[in-house]
């Protein structure tokens, strides 16, 4: 019954039709909020008493690392759906999401390194948070490379899904690394359960930047997944009718 339900709502055809309608809203919302959040954070938020203006990197760094983890978690759910219920759309979504995840993880690492120069006096430190995020970046590259190395795409989908599931163990390690080990990296500044250690004048633009980047990345994911679906399903009748 669950399998029938999942397959009914996860056909590439219905996905393409639905996302075609959603894309214009998501891209406008994403770019508008990201622009608002970044302008607010860069020009209107007050200077930090300890870090000066270098802290303004937070409005790109924190959203980037949040989505670096969330995209991998999303890929792990898709991998599970592909392996358990053989949902082919789930494999297509992993393939489309992996390069976006790699890009945003790189951006998180790069922005953190640049932030480290004026703040810590070094651009790199082999501490738990940074090393586990680097492993996440390597996992994304591994997923992309593994899928690209097979000519049998069905086999590639399955092996890619297994690798994604194995790699998901790294996500709680990244999340908890600042609590479990002594590290240069500061603990989380914002918390869903409350108790954020950041002033509202900095918190609001940060939250807007997070939501804005989220919708922007979903829009990018929609475009990438549609192009991959068109490639994989190009001989199907519905594609010929759709294009």
């Amino acid at each position: 019954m669950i399998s029938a339900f999942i397959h009914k709502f996860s056909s590439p055809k219905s996905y393409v039709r639905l996302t075609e309608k959603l894309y214009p809203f998501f891209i406008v919302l994403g770019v508008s909020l990201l622009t608002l959040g970044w302008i607010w954070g860069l020009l209107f938020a007050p200077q930090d008493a300890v870090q000066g203006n270098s802290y303004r990197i937070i409005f790109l760094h924190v959203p980037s690392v949040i989505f670096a983890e969330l995209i991998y978690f999303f890929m792990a759910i898709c991998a599970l759906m592909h392996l358990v219920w053989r949902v082919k759309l789930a494999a297509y979504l992993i393939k489309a999401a992996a390069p976006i995840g790699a890009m945003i993880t790189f951006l998180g690492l790069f922005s953190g390194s640049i932030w480290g120069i004026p703040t810590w006096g070094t651009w790199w430190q082999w501490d738990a948070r940074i090393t586990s995020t680097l492993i996440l970046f390597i996992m994304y590259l591994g997923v992309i490379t593994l899928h690209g190395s097979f000519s049998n795409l069905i086999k590639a989908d399955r092996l890619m899904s297994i690798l994604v599931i194995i790699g998901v163990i790294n996500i709680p390690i990244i999340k908890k690394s600042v609590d479990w080990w002594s590290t240069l990296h500061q603990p989380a500044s914002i918390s869903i359960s409350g108790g954020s250690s950041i002033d509202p004048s900095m918190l609001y633009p940060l939250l807007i930047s997070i939501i804005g980047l989220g919708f922007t990345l979903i829009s990018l994911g929609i475009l990438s997944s549609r192009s991959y679906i068109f490639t994989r399903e190009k001989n199907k009748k519905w594609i010929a009718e759709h294009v």
Partner: protein
Amino acid sequence: MFDLAFSNLHEILDMNGHGIYVWSVYALGISMIVISFSIAKKRIAGIQKKIKINNASS
């Protein structure tokens, strides 16, 4: 909360010596996002063109 944190363009660019770090991060971030969208759009246009040619020839 909505007062400009800087008094002129030079201060905005310099950010008390931190401008080079801050602006380089945002320049790379915006460039990567824009390039990713551009690549994805070109791929869609390319595959749609191929499918249309295949449809016309079959």
